[in-house]
């Protein structure tokens, strides 16, 4: 799989659902049929915080990797099971595999990254490397 990324703050967006939409046009439905999680990035003195909207995605279906300063959020959002004898009237919820990568703007401490899921939002906390933190210089 070819994964591209662009420099921060541009992001690559790759979802197989996109291909589904292209080649299976009749299956396309809903407003946001491509599964591309929306992101926020914020910064404090000592860390970067990345938020991703992943409603309906189970915790163990998400993978967060950090390699050479590039953070990648990927996984799969499964479509809800259809009980027997039921039928779908409307489907606006996107499903399928997703991957989004971003180049972090500062050196980070890769071994101390943490991530948690709450109410459909993935929150990744990336501590900045020592050299990227603000330092107070004593005036003698």
């Amino acid at each position, binding site marked *: 799989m070819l994964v591209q990324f662009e420099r921060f703050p541009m992001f690559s967006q790759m979802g197989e659902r996109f291909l589904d939409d292209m080649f299976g046009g009749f299956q396309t439905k809903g407003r946001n049929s491509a599964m591309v999680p929306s992101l*926020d990035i914020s910064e404090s003195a000592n860390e970067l915080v990345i938020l991703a909207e992943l409603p*309906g995605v189970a915790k163990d279906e998400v993978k967060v990797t950090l390699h050479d300063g590039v953070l990648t959020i990927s996984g799969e959002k499964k479509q809800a099971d259809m009980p027997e004898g039921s039928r*779908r009237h*409307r489907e606006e*919820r996107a499903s399928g595999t997703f991957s989004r990568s971003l180049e972090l703007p500062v050196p980070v401490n890769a071994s101390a990254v943490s991530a948690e*899921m709450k109410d*459909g939002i993935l929150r990744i906390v990336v501590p900045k490397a020592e050299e990227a933190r603000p330092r107070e210089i004593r005036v003698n």
Partner: protein
Amino acid sequence: MRNENLIVRESSAGNGEEYQNIVAPNAGITETPEAYVVSLEMPGARKEAIALTLAKDVLTVHAGIGAHHGNGDTVLYRELRSTGYHREFSLGDGIDPNSVSAVFEEGVLTVTLLKTPESTPRTIPIN
């Protein structure tokens, strides 16, 4: 072909400035033999901030989203702009208004509306 019992109203939340970033959550509607199940994607909503009301034949869901970032943090890039969710559904006949139940899990609100016994398909045994 029977009529759809659950009609989604494409209502806006309001015209005022304060509603600018209140969005309609993406929905999925499934009909089972016994019920309609409406799933609404509302990432960032807190369970205690979700209001689900049924008045006359209209089911309304409204929810606020708390602040995503800490005070003093610098937002470098922002796509999460919604401050809340709002959507209305007109219910047709055949839904028992006293049967509505809902759960909020993984940012998805799932509302189950049971059909009235009269509109539940029954198999009649042949003697």
